[in-house]
């Protein structure tokens, strides 16, 4: 069942990889393959989840989803074959790697191997995941798989509020669809899904930095992601934070590629991955609003709405399905269904502000890093010391930083209006909120900083 569970993911993953391959047929470097593979994993899983949702709406209880995925895969395969035929054969360029780059890559490989083995071992020891997995994602998946025609019960208004029936269903849909395909409810499926997303985050950050910056910077990206315990320890828990981190990172990376290559499909895909972030977790819904808001401001500033419209076009499908899910299938969110007078009271409460501010400050100064020094503090100092003159992609850097700033402000406001016990909620979730934005922050900071190749060069400029 281990192998079968893994193979059950192969069709959506291969479809995702082929779609990404279609975008960059000419890119055939081994490094580009890592980028295509990892972006394809997340894209494929996202598409499959949307597809299964539509399938359930119309054909719940029918055991033919595998064939739907097979048709999509064959279509992508045919398109890739036809495009490959039209493209002039490109021979693999000889990879020229300096001694310094080899050194950084070896270090990155050591970090990757150990941290990834750590994720696998965690997932293996806790094959059912942790609390949130039982409460939300795997529970919803059980409802869908066991309930078949009654799959909507997974998101029922009758469900206790603690089960977060309103949470977006990407993970649960993927688990249920794999169980459907395997005709067995095995814990290997959610386990593999969580391992796949952990792998994809590392690979995407590495591949994107290698493509846009340098191999040394890409290796450093892996060290910063895999070498901090607060991030990858989430990877094996079968929760939605690392998948959400993946889609946030993917949307930012695709934005950088768009401003680098100016191909409309890239900003459409960026919008699509923002939609997938919203399809993964409620914080992703906020990320979608923030990203779209920042893109509007940027369009107004530039007095050009072309990019924004393309972005919206990519966002459209997942956003429509999300609205249908939120308004037709599930209950209102606990934050939005509360008493508005109480919310005003919370906002005016200075002790709440102080508590949230102190927690944010403590996390910034001491959370997630090394030797009690916070990883976001380390990244800030790193950026001050290492920042480089950005020649291209300045727009993408500004847009990303604005998105991060608004996202963190949003987290602050959510805590402020939270109907739950504030101390409990902050202890339980603050760390994970920063996990969600961490890979994208690492990517942007490293993109805007000098690479190890420059720092260790004999050139003083």
């Amino acid at each position, binding site marked *: 069942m281990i192998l079968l569970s893994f193979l059950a993911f192969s069709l959506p993953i291969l479809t995702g990889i082929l779609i990404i391959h279609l975008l960059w047929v000419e890119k055939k470097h081994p490094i580009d393959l890592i980028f295509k593979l990892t972006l394809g994993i997340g894209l494929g899983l996202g598409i499959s989840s949307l597809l299964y949702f539509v399938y359930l709406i119309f054909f719940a209880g029918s055991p033919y989803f595998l064939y739907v995925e097979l048709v999509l895969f064959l279509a992508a395969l045919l398109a890739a074959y036809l495009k490959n035929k039209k493209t002039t054969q490109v021979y693999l360029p000889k990879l020229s790697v300096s001694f310094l780059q080899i050194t950084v890559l070896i270090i990155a490989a*050591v970090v990757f191997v150990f941290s990834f083995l750590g994720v696998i071992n965690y997932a293996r020891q806790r094959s059912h995941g942790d609390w949130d997995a039982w409460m939300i994602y795997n529970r919803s998946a*059980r409802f869908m798989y066991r309930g078949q025609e009654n799959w909507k019960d997974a998101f029922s208004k009758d469900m206790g509020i603690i089960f977060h029936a309103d949470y977006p269903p990407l993970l649960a849909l993927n688990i249920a669809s794999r169980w459907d395909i395997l005709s067995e409810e095995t814990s290997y499926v959610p386990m593999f899904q969580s391992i796949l997303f952990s792998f994809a985050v590392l690979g995407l950050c590495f591949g994107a930095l290698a493509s846009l910056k340098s191999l040394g910077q890409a290796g450093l990206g892996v060290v910063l992601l895999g070498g901090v315990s607060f991030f990858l320890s989430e990877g094996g828990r079968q929760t939605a934070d690392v998948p959400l981190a993946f889609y946030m990172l993917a949307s930012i990376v695709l934005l950088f590629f768009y401003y680098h290559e100016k191909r409309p499909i890239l900003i459409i895909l960026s919008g699509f991955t923002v939609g997938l972030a919203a399809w993964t977790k409620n914080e992703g819904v906020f990320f979608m609003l923030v990203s779209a808001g920042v893109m509007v401001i940027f369009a107004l500033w530039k007095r050009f709405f072309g990019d924004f419209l393309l972005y919206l076009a990519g966002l459209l499908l997942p956003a429509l399905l999300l609205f249908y899910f939120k308004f037709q299938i599930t209950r209102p969110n606990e934050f939005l269904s509360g008493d508005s007078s109480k919310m005003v009271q919370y906002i005016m409460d200075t002790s709440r502000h102080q508590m949230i501010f102190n927690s944010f400050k403590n996390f910034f100064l001491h959370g997630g890093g090394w030797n009690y020094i916070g990883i976001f503090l380390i990244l800030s100092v790193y950026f001050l010391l290492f920042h480089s003159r950005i020649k291209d992609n300045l727009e993408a850097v500004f847009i990303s930083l604005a998105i991060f700033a608004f996202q963190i402000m949003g987290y602050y406001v959510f805590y402020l209006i939270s109907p739950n016990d504030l101390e409990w909620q902050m202890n339980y979730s603050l760390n994970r909120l920063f996990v969600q934005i961490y890979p994208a922050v690492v990517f942007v900071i490293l993109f805007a900083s000098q690479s190890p190749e420059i*720092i*260790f060069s004999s050139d*003083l400029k």
Partner: protein
Amino acid sequence: MLMLRKYLQRIILIVIALLGVKTGIEGFISTLNMHSNDASVINWDERLSNLIAPVPFEYGLIGYISNADIPGAAFDEDDVFGEYILTQFAVAPLILVQGTDQEWNILNLDPVTYETWNQINANQFEVVGFGGGVYLVRKADK
């Protein structure tokens, strides 16, 4: 000045690389000795699926109470919370609702608390199943 800055940057990069490797290895080692929670999930799953076997429907609502719902009963908040989550996880696609207003109900009560509950609710419910400290009861008038 530029040279000094460059040396500082090199030292920082080396330190980051070393700390990254150290944390990566430590993270892996910590997972070797970690406590697995699988047994408790599987155990609870088995207990509950045996318990609800007599329930004649596959979908719909089923009531649930624990020691926390009985005034004066002793309980551990973490246990109550954890068992509530695990019970819903186990009985899916039945939806757990708090209280005993449903026709079928799960009572997660210790023996002493069950006796207290039974004295108050005598003749209103019939015990259909019992296992591992959890009761399945059905409203007697239905």
